[in-house]
């Protein structure tokens, strides 16, 4: 019995030893790569409520991938869910939706320069001047006006519903207002809504083509309406053409445009290519996703290379497939959890 007591005491001693690790840990704490070369920032959503959003960085020249760059460089988790990242004045504005914040990151070293906090449920950031930026929001019923240099909230523009992607064109800001099926036109000098354009059900993304037309992709909601690709003339702010998708069950998203600004790309489970002169929706995928679905799309503004994100089972690190402009695969990358957003940095 004595032996038993000694062994018990030993076990208790072992258990009472202090340890260092608390909270989520990583096995592959890869260091940040400092080689020059154009880099692609891959925003990985992470799981809702898990605090595991991350940034992966891909060097197209050395073909090296660095995962978890934000955590490594800042020794801090990023939060969750990473919704979007936008390059503005040399800084990356990373919108972390469920963490209600925007991390402002220096793209030379990926150190956080500041955090915009106090947002309700931020989605996308658009930088307008060193002192003004707009942030769309899921629940706030407002576009938040922020100062990108001081990281302060400076005001808000009241809107009716959920706002998503936005862009600046011709001294106007065009905002997809998903909740009311509209494109809002805002004058960034006065922060007033000057016009609104009704489009299809649930507009989610938008681009400007070579002829100054605004293209808007509408998902159609969940079996609520036919998805649509809508063309808007930006001088008159009127809809000039509507192309309907084949099936009400489709849910197209992530509208992108190539460097010629004459070819559109979007996801509808698979990748589709659409010439701006085409007069109907393409039925054959440009790149097929097989069993899984593509969760994010990026088109390089330098060479039209195609980056497709696959989140696999959404609880494991995802994959990114790099294709050249002719849809030949170049490489498969292992990135962070739920890759979704691509930002292309210049050298």
């Amino acid at each position, binding site marked *: *019995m004595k032996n*038993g007591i000694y*062994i*018990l005491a*030993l*076990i*208790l001693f*072992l*258990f*009472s030893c202090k*340890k260092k*690790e*608390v*909270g*989520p*840990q*990583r*096995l*592959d704490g890869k260091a940040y790569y400092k080689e020059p070369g154009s880099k692609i920032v891959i925003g990985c959503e992470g799981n809702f*409520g*898990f*605090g*595991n959003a991350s940034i992966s960085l891909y060097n197209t020249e050395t073909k090296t991938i660095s995962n978890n760059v934000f955590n490594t460089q800042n020794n*801090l*988790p990023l*939060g969750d869910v990473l919704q979007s990242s936008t390059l503005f004045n040399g800084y990356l504005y990373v919108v972390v939706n*469920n*963490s*209600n914040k925007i991390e402002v990151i220096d793209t030379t070293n990926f150190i*956080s320069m500041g*955090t915009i*906090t106090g947002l*309700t449920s931020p989605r996308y950031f658009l930088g307008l001047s060193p002192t003004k930026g707009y942030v769309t929001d*899921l*629940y706030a019923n407002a576009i938040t006006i922020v100062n990108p240099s001081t990281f302060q909230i400076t005001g808000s523009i009241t809107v009716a519903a959920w706002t998503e992607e936005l862009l600046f064109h011709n001294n106007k800001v065009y905002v997809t207002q998903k909740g009311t099926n509209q494109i809002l036109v805002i004058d960034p000098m006065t922060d007033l809504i000057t016009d609104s354009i009704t489009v299809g059900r649930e507009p989610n993304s938008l681009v400007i083509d070579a002829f100054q037309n605004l293209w808007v992709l509408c998902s159609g*909601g*969940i*079996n609520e309406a036919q998805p649509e690709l809508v063309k808007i003339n930006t001088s008159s702010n009127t809809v000039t053409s509507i192309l309907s998708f084949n099936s009400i*069950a*489709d*849910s197209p*998203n992530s509208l992108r445009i190539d460097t010629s600004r004459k070819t559109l790309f979007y996801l*509808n*489970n698979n990748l589709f290519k659409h010439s701006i002169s085409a007069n109907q929706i393409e039925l054959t995928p440009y790149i097929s996703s*097989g*069993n*899984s*679905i593509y*969760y994010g799309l990026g088109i390089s503004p330098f060479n039209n290379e195609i980056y497709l994100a*696959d*989140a*696999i*089972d*959404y*609880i*494991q*690190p995802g994959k990114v497939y790099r294709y050249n402009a002719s849809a030949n695969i170049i490489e*498969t990358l*292992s990135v962070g*959890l739920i890759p979704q957003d691509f930002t292309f940095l210049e050298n």
Partner: protein
Amino acid sequence: MKGLIFLLLFALNVSFKYGQQDTLPEVEVKANKINSPSLTYKVVTFKIDDNNSLSELIQNNSAIYLKSYGLGNLATVSIRGANASQTQLLWNGFTINSPTLGQNDLSIASTSLIDHASLNLGASSVVNSSGGLGGSIQLENKTDFKKRVKLIASQEIGSFGINNSIVKLKLGNKKWQSFTGFAKKKAENDFEYNDFLSKEPRIIKQANAVYQQLELAQNFYYKPSQNHQIGLKTNYTTTERQLPSIMGIMSNGEQQFDDAIKSSLEWNLNKRNYFHQMSVGYFYDFLNYIDTIAAIDSKVRINSFKGYYKGKYYFNDSTQLRLSLNTDRIFASSSNFNEVKYQVRDAVFVEYYQLLKNSLSYTLSFRKELITDLKTPLVPAIALKWNKWEKHQLFSSVARNFRAPTLNDLYWNPGGNTDLNPENGIMGELGYQYQVNKMAIGITAYYSFINNWIQWLPSGKGYWSPVNLKEVESYGVEFSAEKKVKLKEVTLSLIGSYNLVIAQNRASILEDDASITKQLIYVPRNTASIQANIIYRSISLGYRQSYNGSVFIDAANQTYMPYYAPANFRFDWRINKNENKNKYSLGVTVENLYNEEYQIVANRPMPGRYFRLILKVEFNK
């Protein structure tokens, strides 16, 4: 480190073999109760502690991994690598897993007003229901027919505003028994933690975490003759909770309200050659989740009418037949369903038991369930037990089992998938139990294979949808040892347990799926606990050390939560001058004795050291 602990536990076990004589009063293996598996399966029974929730009861009495989001917050178990939905919870013979979620939040499942709790692992759960791919937990109310007037009242206060009051009144004679119970529990759960997610490390108090529960129970038992017994059992529980956000995130002030009514009326007839039990039950469940910022106010309301017949027929001393018939009619309305969903679950279960020569016994059983909109497989099970030698017992079982998709899996709008197949499992175990007066050792090896494992994924149509995604193989070992030593007036008892769980994904419908051959998330490979109790006259001291090995938190096993090993210490002082008279006791518990900083679920802080004081009085007339 893990291996070392395992070895040490074995060493401890070896040291048990020398020297003790007296009797071991608490026996782990109990059987032959109508609601428990047959004579051939091993069942683990828990000693009820009034003041604990079911999650605490499991944590304090086994090495089963409890996935807790924090004090008073969601808690579920993972048994043998299976998930929370693959564990069935039964109340007085009826399954009470939420038909919409498929699981139970064990942090709000109270054990204050029940009399008996037990655990069936693996194949043995098919006796009571399908769906227990990991196992099932039974909660029961029962009584004997002694003449009594007994009032038990306890008051607990503790750190973070813990304030629990329990009153129980038991009245009865040879024919009638009544049990009235009242329990009110409250905690602020505003403990401090180190917020290491902020840029400047800071200590903050957990916010939005108040927990309140009120529970009422009234049971009547009537025994008109020696062979008949009638029982009416009712329980109403209402819980109001604030749900804290994860570390580093501003709270949206989320709240959850849970209301539940459980009731049953049962009749037992016990004759020499047969036993009949019939029971009908009504169950009501209401869940309301509110997040005002996100404009979510979701309500789920479920009414179920259940009934069963259970019969046992003894052909002779060594053969018996058991038959049970179950019916379950579920009416579920939810903010996420188009309409009220009606589901019927009917089941028939037949089991034949025979004791052969050489003390070898076996049971052979079949279960068949008919569930609305679903094709379910036949569930056969076979179990063997060999106890030729009094001290040694060998047992083994093999069964098929399935778990039906939940109502959310089937009908959630949008995304519900009515083409889902049930999760299909095959499982087996081989166990050995050694038991003498003052010690017991048990070791069980198990294996299970579950295909059609359900997981929700984005459908590409703008919403998520469940699919039959994986094939999961699990195997492992469960080891437990118990030893009692009596030295004059001091009784020392030691209980140790260790679980090894290897649970890996074997196949996937997805391309490039790196989770294949990897351990499932939030399933620790190693868990262990050791408990020492010393009783000297009216004073008892208890020490419990647990060890929960690290768990992976992504399916490709690249990120993990580190191990944690909180200990607790308990001091009890009982004053009871003589039997059947008034009793008083005072208990002090120190939880997380070494003030360990840890998290179970990523970025969900757990409290450091904290205290609980319990005063209990019992009046007998």
